[in-house]
């Protein structure tokens, strides 16, 4: 029976990135995926004829350009179409537009407040500075501060030097920034509600925190650090939906000789004498491998797939305490015509990008208060995009696909499991908010897929439906992600690694965890890594 060099559990983007790098280093790699399709949370699915849904992740920006180039993804069909701006609709019938161009954006702010327009320069400069400091950390393995290994100490010294290089005042600003709430941070610059609401949304998307929770200013960076085609902070649609990212990865993987098996659900990771030895599929088939790399989240990997007796108690306790409460839901809607937004001028470019209907930080925070009480938000925060405005491949001519990201949506409803009736009521809450700003919207709906944390867990395998495979709070970042002592993609079991968003630097369709894990694995195997570009700082 064949023994693979490495078996990757899960064909999400991080699993595939990891597999690509290992295969290119000369290993014989098998990727096993439980679904019929590959992609994890980066998929394009056809659930109604003629339409493609990016039914989980829906926009592209964070994906690391180094990976894009190393793995030749454009050659395998990945194309990212960057989009411009977006808008926040206000309840008085006006709107605030977003423009990528700093000066245009500033002029738009001036329509609401001269002071805020001036502050925007200062704000943009300060945020860019924070990005510049943090971005290089994404592509590095976090050092273990309790370790005396030269590599960890060297890395700590690198970080300390980099920090000291900021100069005293910026060091102080950086330290404050890390623990501030996005709301408090914005209060230091702006006075206009809608401007603050507009900028604060990046601090909360995907996190189980409200804009007034300390630590959300940092989450903002996770959404600012991206780039599309070398354009920093830009966002775009993957042509053909987010599945195009994972398809290109899969094609690149196969082109270098890798093997993918779908409909192969892993039930157990085999461990022999403390060493990973392969996987057992749900139909009982055993596949042998010298290494197993799990793209599943940390809880699923160690609490479901591995026999607990193989793991030390302290590790298990920490994994159990790892928090991954789902906080978002998603509606994927097929529309038979382009919805109208009367607040926008005709031909406004804003409809081609993010649309929001939450015009104050207070409304966002109240939406979070509902989540804390175990309910979906009565007045939710929506991030709406219509990718078909720029990418005609996802719907028949004249028709559109709309992705509605919804925050907040709890993993359980007031402590009990979701029911279909709950799900429908949740969808209705969302639709009625859209209708308030787009009359006639309801009549354009051809088909709709509603996803609560329940569906995300069942289909994608994300525990509690947490889209980042674990909350991005201080106790779960850097050397604490996923758990202290095992933040370097390894586990207590020899030859068992993890490479998903549960690991540093966390979620988003970024690919960094998969790449960083590959680097660590190749280091353990004492293999060359010349096929992996070093991280470059672009900001």
């Amino acid at each position: 029976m064949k023994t693979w060099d490495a078996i990757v559990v899960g064909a999400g983007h991080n699993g595939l990135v990891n597999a690509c790098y290992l295969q290119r280093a000369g290993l014989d790699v098998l990727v096993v995926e439980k679904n019929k399709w590959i992609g994890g949370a980066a998929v394009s699915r056809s659930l109604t004829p003629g339409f493609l849904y990016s039914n989980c992740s829906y926009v592209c920006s964070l994906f690391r350009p180094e990976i894009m180039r190393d793995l030749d993804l454009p050659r395998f069909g990945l194309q990212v179409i960057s989009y411009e701006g977006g808008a926040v609709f206000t309840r008085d019938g006006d709107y605030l537009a977003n423009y990528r161009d700093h000066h245009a954006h500033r002029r738009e702010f001036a329509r609401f407040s001269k002071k805020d327009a001036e502050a925007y320069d200062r704000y943009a400069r300060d945020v860019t500075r924070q990005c510049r400091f943090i971005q290089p950390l994404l592509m590095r393995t976090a050092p273990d501060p309790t370790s005396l290994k030269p590599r960890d100490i060297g890395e700590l010294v690198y970080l300390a030097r980099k920090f000291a290089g900021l100069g005293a005042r910026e060091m102080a600003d950086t330290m404050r920034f890390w623990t501030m709430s996005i709301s408090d941070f914005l209060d230091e610059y702006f006075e206009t509600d809608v401007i603050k609401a507009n900028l604060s949304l990046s601090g909360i998307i995907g996190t189980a925190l409200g804009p007034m929770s300390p630590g959300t200013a940092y989450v903002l960076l996770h959404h600012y650090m991206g780039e599309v085609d070398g354009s920093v902070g830009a966002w775009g649609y993957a042509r053909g939906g987010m599945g195009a990212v994972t398809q290109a990865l899969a094609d690149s993987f196969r082109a270098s000789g890798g093997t993918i098996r779908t409909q192969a659900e892993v039930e157990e990771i085999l461990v022999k004498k403390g060493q990973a030895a392969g996987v057992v599929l749900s139909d009982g088939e055993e596949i042998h491998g010298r290494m197993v790399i799990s793209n599943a989240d940390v809880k699923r990997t160690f609490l479901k797939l591995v026999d607990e007796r193989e793991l030390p108690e302290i590790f298990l306790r920490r994994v159990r305490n790892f928090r991954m409460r789902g906080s978002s839901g998603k509606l994927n809607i097929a529309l038979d015509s382009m919805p109208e937004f009367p607040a926008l001028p005709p031909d406004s470019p804003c409809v081609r990008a993010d649309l929001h209907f939450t015009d104050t930080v207070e409304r966002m925070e109240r939406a979070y208060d509902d989540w804390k009480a175990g309910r979906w938000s009565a007045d939710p925060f929506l991030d709406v995009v219509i990718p078909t405005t720029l990418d005609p491949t996802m719907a028949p001519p004249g028709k559109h696909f709309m992705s509605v990201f919804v925050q907040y949506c709890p993993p359980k409803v007031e402590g009990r499991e979701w029911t279909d009736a709950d799900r429908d009521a949740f969808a209705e809450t969302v639709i009625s908010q859209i209708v308030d700003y787009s009359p006639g919207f309801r009549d354009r709906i051809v088909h709709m897929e509603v996803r609560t944390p329940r569906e995300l867990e069942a289909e994608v395998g994300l525990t509690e439906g947490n889209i980042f495979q674990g909350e991005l709070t201080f106790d779960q970042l850097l050397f604490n992600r996923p758990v202290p002592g095992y933040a370097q993609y390894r586990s207590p079991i020899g030859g068992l690694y993890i490479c998903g968003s549960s690991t540093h630097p966390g979620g988003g369709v970024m690919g960094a965890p998969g790449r960083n894990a590959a680097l660590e694995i190749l280091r353990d195997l004492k293999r060359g890594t010349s096929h992996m570009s070093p991280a470059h700082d672009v900001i």
Partner: protein
Amino acid sequence: MTSSDETRWDAVVIGGGHNGLVCAAFLGRVGRKVLVLEAEEQIGGAGRTHEFAPGFRVSMAHLLNRLHPEVVKALELEKHGLDLSPAHQVPTVALSSEGKPLILTGAYGEGLEGADASEKQAWAEVRAQLFRYADILKPLLARRPPSLDGMDLAASSAWAMTGLSLKRLGREDMRDFLRVLLMNVADFCDEGLQDDRLKGLLAFDAVLGSHLGPRSPTSLLGLYYRLAGELGGAPGAQLVPAGGTGAVMAAVRKAAEAAGVTIRTSAVAAKVFVEKGRATGVMLDSGEDIRAGKVISALNPATTFLELVGPQHLDTGFVRRVSNIRMKGDAAKLHLALERIPAFNGLPQQYRNARLVIASSTDYVERAFNPAKHGEFSPEPAMEITLPSIGDPSLAPTGASVLSATIQYAPYLLKEGWVAGKPKLLEAVLSVLERHAPGIRKTILHSELLTPADIEARYRMPGGHWHHGELQADQMLMSRPVFGAEGYHTPLPGLFLAGSGSHPGGGIFGVPGMNAARRVLGGRA
């Protein structure tokens, strides 16, 4: 006046609260001629004891839990009348409106009554862990915050001590320390404890005095801050001072006077003189000029820089940072004059002197917090209650009782305004009290509710914030009160800060005053 005028005082301290007095006393002891200016008739700031109804006396700050041992020792406060004896130390009771209360005896729960055996065991472990971690932070809290601008010996030794004690924890404990440091208190409690009352109490103590809920990340820091305090050598101990906190203030005053400090009350500082970029004295609102070699403000940093100094003497970036200090208080204070000692549900007689906490679960505290974010008060507030007249009957007429309660949350900027809101808050507070002590409302002779706006006006604390600025991670250490004034110095030579707005923060601690004095003297702090 010109700068050639004779300087009479070596130092003038603005503000006769405990930090101002402590600072003055430390300076006086080494022979400096020091004048303290107190705006009110009485010294002691928020620690003074006042008569709020005929025969009933109380202090805004009603508990003592962290007066720093170095302050007590160096100023010989016990000789000057401070009584820290264990006899006055009190337990904490987590009240429950239906079931039995949970009682934490000894210094912050050395013993736990009213919980089952497994929870007692769990608490013993969690408590030990909390104190172990609080101990690591202690040296950082007692010293001047480390400077980012090239470290001096004193600062790096504080870091080194912290690093060393971290290493001493052992590897796994150190990992847990680094993991939980910036965690929220609700999740922390859920990891180790079961009892809602206990979790609610810890959550309450963590967020007391700050604009955070138990589920806000970093809220666990507040609990460390509380547990880093000690009294009479007992970490976590607390006492309801005899004579009210005013008696503590009197001891500090005596220490200052014994050190040769001159104290002037009813002397309101209106302006700090700045000449050639240097602070040279203080002008009173009467127009009187007081010249001094050093000016030390124990007032709130915003008041100090924006009102007394004035933005024209400071650079724009600094002024912006000062204006951005968050200091909108969330705690109100209730004083009740009661006909008789109230009876709380299930509270044994011998624990009536305790600190009584109404915070039945972390969710209770979190729900109380929610409205505060939106400019509304909690319809079901959490509170900390003491009956100071039990330990010191002189605070109330015979047979009667004083009830003192800190109420959370009551935001400084109430949307509907405090004129309309105050009676409604009082009603909410009294109905919660009535639930826990049935019949109490009928025994109320007089009530005084101080909203943050009232506290601001009465105690000259902007925002009514007793820490003189939110005590949150981004306003701690070298960011307290702001970068550029973090080591008790300021951008103006000759001007220093000595109040709770400086590191490490508020409570009757005395460390800002002590460290400021050391800084003024140019020595280690």
